[in-house]
C-alpha cells in the first residue's frame, strides 16, 4: 500500500527535513573523512535540494551512473582502496548523498532512511563514547520519525508529532533492547577477521624513544587505562606499569627489537605480596598489555615475551579488559644468556667521548658494579640536574650534551643516559617504557592512568640478582614517583593538566565524569563473552547451553512484549467514558435482580419511566441517576464533580424487592 503516488516529487519541506537527517548522521564522520569527499557530498546535497525546490528535473540513469563511478573513483583515490572501514564509510556517505538525487518514490525515501541507520552504526566503529551514543540515539529517533512521516497518507511534515511518536517507540523498545543486549550470545572471536585500518593520531607509547618523545606525550590528558585493584592498592611510588623494553640504541633513538614470542614465566622467582587487578585498556593499536612488575598470573590470549613485557595475541584495536596477578618481589633471569648479555651491552662506537672518559674514571675508582651504580645515582642527585618538560635541544653527542652541558631533561633523557653509561661500564642494561603512578579516583574506587603518566626507567642486570629496576628520574625528582607528574612539574600543572587543576570542585567534577566513563567502559563497552558468561552464571543460566539462552531470551522477551502490549491497550482505553457505562450497567444489574430488566430497545429515559411506574419508592432515585447518566454520557462538557456524584449515587443505590420498604 504505497500511499504516495509513484513519480510524485518529494515536497520542499520534506526535502529540508531529509537533508537535516543526512547532516545529522554524516556529521560525526566529517572529522575523519577526507575533505574532498565531504565537499563532494555538500555539492550533491545542494543539487538534490535544488531539484526539489526549483523543480529541476532528476538526473537520468546515465548521469547517475557517472556520479556513482565518480564517487567510487574519488574514494579509491583518497583512501587508495575501496574496502575497509574508512573507505567503506566514505562510500556509504556518498551513496546516501547520491540517493538525494533520486528521491522520486516512497521506496526511495525509505531506502534513504535505511541507509541512514546503517551509517549510524558505522559511526560506532570510530567512537563509542557516551556522548556519541546519546547523539546517535537522537539521530535514530530523527530517522525513525521520518519513517512515521512516510507512513502517514498526507503530504504534511508534522515534525513534532512524528518525533513524539518515534521517541515513544524508542522508549518502549529500550527494555527489549536491554534484554537482547544482555542475553544475546556474544562470540569470543569474530566471524572472520576484518582488515585493520591504519590508525593515525592515537596518542600513546611507541616502540622507540628519542629525546622529546615522552615529554610530548605528557601534554595529553587522555586516559591510557584504568585499574581496579582487588585488594588495597600499592603506594603510587611502586606502580611501575611495564610496557615495551628498548634495548637497541643507534646514538639518538632507543628501539624495541624484542621478538613477539612467548618467554617463560617459570624463570620468574617471585615472593612477597600478590596484587590482583583488572585493567580496562583504551585501544592503542599495539600489542602491549600494561602490567605491574612482575606479572605472574596472566589473562587469556596473552603471553610474556623474553623481556617480560605482557603481550596480547593481536593488536589492541578495541577497549580491552584483562585481569593480572603480579608480585612485587621477584627475580628474573638470574642466568643471562651470552647472546642477550652481548645485546644488552651493545653501543654505537665513537660517540660521546666525555661520557666514555667518565666511565673509565668510574671503573678505576670503584671495584664493584653496585658501588658504581650508587655513585652515578648520587651524582645525579647532587649535581645541578633538573627535571623539566622543555629541555634544550641536544647535539650529535646527545649523552655528552645532556650529562655535562644542559643537565636538564625529562625521564627519557635520564633513563637513556643512565643505560648508556651502564653499558659503558659493562653492566647489561636496558630502557623500559611504560607508565608510572596514576590518579586514584575515590568516587569509583579505581586508578586512572593517563598518557601524562608515561615514564621511562632503566633495568640493569647484576650477577645473582638478575634484572633490577633503577629509576634515575627518581634520583633527580623523587616527587615524580611519589606524588605524580604535576608536583614534579609545576609548569605542567599550570599550563594544561585539567584533571589536576587547583579548583577542587572542577577536579571532583572531572573525576565524577571519569568514573561514569569507567563504568560505561567496563559494563557497556566491555560486555563481552567472558563478562556475559559470569553474569549469566550469577542468574543461574549456563551460557554454554544454547538452548538455555534461547529459552531465556524467548521467555523474557515474550513477557516484556506482553507487558508493553497490555500497556498500549490500557493507554488506548477511554477510561472516563468507560467507567460511566460500567456504573450504569451496575445500576441496571441491580434493578434486574429485583425483576426489572432493561429491554434491549429501551433507552435510559424509557427504562426509568417504567421503573418509576412499577416502584414509586424508587422513582426519585432512579430519575436522578438517569438524569446524571444522560448528562455525563451525552451532555456537552458535563461538570467535573458530576461524575463523582453519579458514582456515589450508584454505589448507594441498593433496591430491595417487595413493593414497600420495610418499616420497623
Amino acid at each position, binding site marked *: *500500500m504505497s500511499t504516495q503516488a509513484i513519480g510524485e516529487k518529494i515536497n520542499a519541506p520534506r526535502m529540508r527535513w531529509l537533508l537535516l537527517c543526512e547532516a545529522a548522521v554524516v556529521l560525526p564522520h566529517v572529522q575523519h573523512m577526507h575533505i574532498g569527499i565531504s565537499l563532494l557530498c555538500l555539492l550533491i546535497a545542494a543539487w538534490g535540494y535544488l531539484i526539489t525546490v526549483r523543480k529541476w528535473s532528476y538526473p537520468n540513469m546515465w548521469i547517475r551512473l557517472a556520479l556513482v563511478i565518480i564517487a567510487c573513483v574519488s574514494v579509491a583515490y583518497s583512501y587508495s582502496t575501496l574496502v575497509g572501514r574508512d573507505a567503506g564509510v566514505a562510500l556509504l556517505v556518498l551513496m546516501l548523498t547520491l540517493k538525494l538525487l533520486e528521491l522520486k518514490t516512497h521506496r526511495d525515501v525509505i531506502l534513504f532512511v*535505511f541507509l541512514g541507520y*546503517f551509517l549510524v552504526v558505522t559511526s560506532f566503529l570510530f567512537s563509542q563514547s557516551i556522548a556519541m551514543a546519546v547523539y546517535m540515539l537522537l539521530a535514530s529517533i530523527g530517522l*525513525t520519525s521520518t519513517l512515521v512521516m512516510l507512513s502517514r497518507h498526507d503530504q504534511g511534515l508534522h515534525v513534532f508529532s512524528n518525533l513524539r511518536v518515534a521517541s515513544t517507540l524508542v522508549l518502549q523498545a*529500550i527494555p527489549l533492547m536491554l534484554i537482547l543486549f544482555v542475553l544475546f550470545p556474544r562470540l569470543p572471536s569474530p566471524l572472520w577477521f576484518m582488515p585493520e585500518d591504519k590508525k593515525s593520531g592515537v596518542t600513546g607509547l611507541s616502540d622507540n624513544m628519542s629525546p622529546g618523545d615522552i615529554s610530548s606525550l605528557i601534554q595529553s590528558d587522555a586516559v591510557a587505562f584504568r585499574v581496579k585493584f582487588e585488594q588495597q592498592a600499592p603506594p603510587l611510588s611502586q606502580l611501575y606499569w611495564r610496557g615495551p623494553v628498548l634495548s637497541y640504541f643507534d646514538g639518538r633513538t632507543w628501539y624495541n627489537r624484542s621478538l613477539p614470542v612467548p618467554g617463560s614465566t617459570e624463570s620468574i622467582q617471585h615472593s612477597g605480596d600478590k596484587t590482583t587487578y583488572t585493567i580496562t585498556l583504551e585501544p592503542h593499536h599495539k600489542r602491549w598489555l600494561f602490567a605491574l612488575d612482575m606479572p605472574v598470573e596472566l589473562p587469556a590470549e596473552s603471553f610474556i615475551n623474553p623481556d617480560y613485557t605482557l603481550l596480547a595475541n593481536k593488536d589492541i584495536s578495541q577497549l580491552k579488559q584483562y585481569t593480572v596477578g603480579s608480585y612485587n618481589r621477584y627475580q628474573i633471569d638470574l642466568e643471562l644468556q651470552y647472546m642477550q648479555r652481548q645485546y644488552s651491552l651493545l653501543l654505537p662506537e665513537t660517540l660521546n667521548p666525555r661520557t666514555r672518559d667518565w666511565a673509565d674514571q668510574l671503573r678505576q675508582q670503584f671495584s664493584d658494579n653496585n658501588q658504581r651504580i650508587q655513585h652515578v645515582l648520587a651524582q645525579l642527585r647532587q649535581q645541578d640536574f633538573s627535571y623539566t618538560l622543555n629541555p634544550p635541544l641536544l647535539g650529535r653527542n646527545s649523552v655528552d650534551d645532556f650529562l655535562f652541558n644542559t643537565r636538564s631533561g625529562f625521564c627519557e633523557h635520564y633513563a637513556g643516559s643512565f643505560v648508556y653509561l651502564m653499558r659503558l661500564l659493562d653492566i647489561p642494561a636496558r630502557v623500559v617504557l611504560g607508565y608510572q603512578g596514576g590518579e586514584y579516583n575515590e568516587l569509583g574506587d579505581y586508578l586512572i592512568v593517563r598518557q601524562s603518566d608515561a615514564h621511562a626507567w632503566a633495568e640493569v642486570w647484576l650477577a645473582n640478582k638478575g634484572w633490577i629496576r633503577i629509576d634515575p628520574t627518581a634520583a633527580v625528582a623523587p616527587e615524580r614517583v611519589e606524588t605524580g607528574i604535576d608536583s614534579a612539574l609545576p609548569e605542567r600543572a599550570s599550563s594544561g593538566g585539567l584533571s589536576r587543576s587547583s579548583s577542587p570542585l572542577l577536579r571532583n567534577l572531572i573525576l565524577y565524569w571519569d568514573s561514569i566513563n569507567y563504568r560505561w567502559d567496563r559494563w*557497556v563497552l566491555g560486555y563481552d563473552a567472558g563478562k556475559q558468561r559470569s553474569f549469566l552464571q550469577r542468574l543461574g543460566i549456563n551460557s554454554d547451553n544454547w538452548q538455555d539462552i534461547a529459552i531465556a531470551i524467548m521467555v523474557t522477551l515474550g513477557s516484556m512484549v506482553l507487558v508493553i502490549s497490555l500497556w498500549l491497550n490500557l493507554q*488506548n482505553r477511554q477510561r472516563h467514558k468507560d467507567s460511566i457505562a460500567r456504573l450504569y450497567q451496575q445500576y441496571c444489574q441491580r434493578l434486574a435482580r429485583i425483576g426489572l430488566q432493561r429491554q434491549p430497545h429501551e433507552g435510559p429515559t424509557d427504562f426509568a419511566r417504567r421503573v418509576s411506574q412499577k416502584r414509586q419508592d424508587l422513582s426519585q432515585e432512579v430519575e436522578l441517576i438517569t438524569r446524571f447518566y444522560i448528562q455525563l454520557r451525552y451532555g456537552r462538557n458535563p461538570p467535573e464533580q458530576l461524575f463523582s456524584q453519579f458514582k456515589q449515587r450508584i454505589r448507594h443505590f441498593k433496591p430491595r424487592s417487595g413493593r414497600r420498604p420495610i418499616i420497623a
Partner: protein
Amino acid sequence: MSSLAEKLSTRRLVGPEQEPIILHRRRIYILPTRYGGLFTVLLILMLIGAINYNNSLAFALTFLMGSVALVSMLHTHRNLSGLQIRCASTQSVFCGQEAEFPIVLSNRNALDKISVNLRRMDNEEININVPAASTVTARLSVTSRQRGRLMSGRLKVATEYPLGLFHAWSWIHPDAACTVYPTPEKNGPTPDFELQGQGEGQARQRGQDDFSGLRRYQHGDSIKSIAWKQSARGAGMFSKEFSGTGVKSLWLDWDMAGSHSLEQRLSRLCAWILLCESAGNEYGLRMPGHSISPGKGHRHRHCCLSALALYGSKVT
C-alpha cells in the same frame, strides 16, 4: 501480500455482516511489509558487523532498532483494533456516475487512528484519520458500470502506521448497496403520451390554475407551491393546492419505448421518467409483470427508477 495470507484472512468472511462491525483482535491480521523484510535484512547486516567488530554499541543499536520494529508491530495493530465500522445509506446514481459508499468509522478509543486505508476489491481506496473518541465518514467512491444493485462487497481496512514495517488488515463485509439506475437516454424521442383520467369522475384533480386549499407538505412538492406564510407559523410545512385542468397523468408503457435492446428500452424509460418529473406531471410505469400507478415526487421517482434498475435481476 501473499495470496495464502489473503485466503486465510478472508476465510471467516462469507457474506454481509451485522453492523456495526467492530475490529477486534481476532479479526485483525498482521504481516511485515516488504519494507519490513528489507529492514530485517538491514538488521542482520548490522548484527554481523557488530559481531565481527565486537562493537557493543553496534549491538545495542541493532537490538534497539529490532525492538523498535517489534514495538511498532504492536502500535500498528493498535491503530486498527477497536475501530467500529458501518455503512450509512447510499444515494442512488445513474449508471456511469460515481456511486458513494459513506463508510462511517467510529473510534471509541483514547488515541487517534491514523492513516487507515479502506480499499474495495483492490481498486477504489481512501485514506483517512479517525481522531480519538470521534466518528468520521469516509466516502468511498466507486464508478458504477451497470444498472442494478451495486454491492459494497468485501472491503479491506488496513494500516501501516507508524513505521510502515508492518501491514495490519481486516476484511469487512458491510451490508451496503447502492441502486444504480439505467443511464438516461440522451436526445431520445419524446413519448407519445397516453393520457388517463380526463373524465369528470375525478373528484379532485391537482392542477396549477386555481387555489383550492392547503395540505401538509410532501417530499417532492414544488418549491413554488409551498405556502410560506402559513408554514412560517411553526405548525409545520404546508403546500398550496390548486385545482384546474392542467393535470396530466401519464402512463409510461414498456411497449411505447419499443427499441432494439432491453437496456436501450430501460434507458429511454429512465429518460422519460426524468422528463415527466421535471415537468411536474404525474406518471405511472407499466412494465412486464409489474406496474406502478401514477404519482410524482421524489419517492415515486425513486420507486420507478428502481424498478427499471432492478428489472430482470433476482434481487428485488
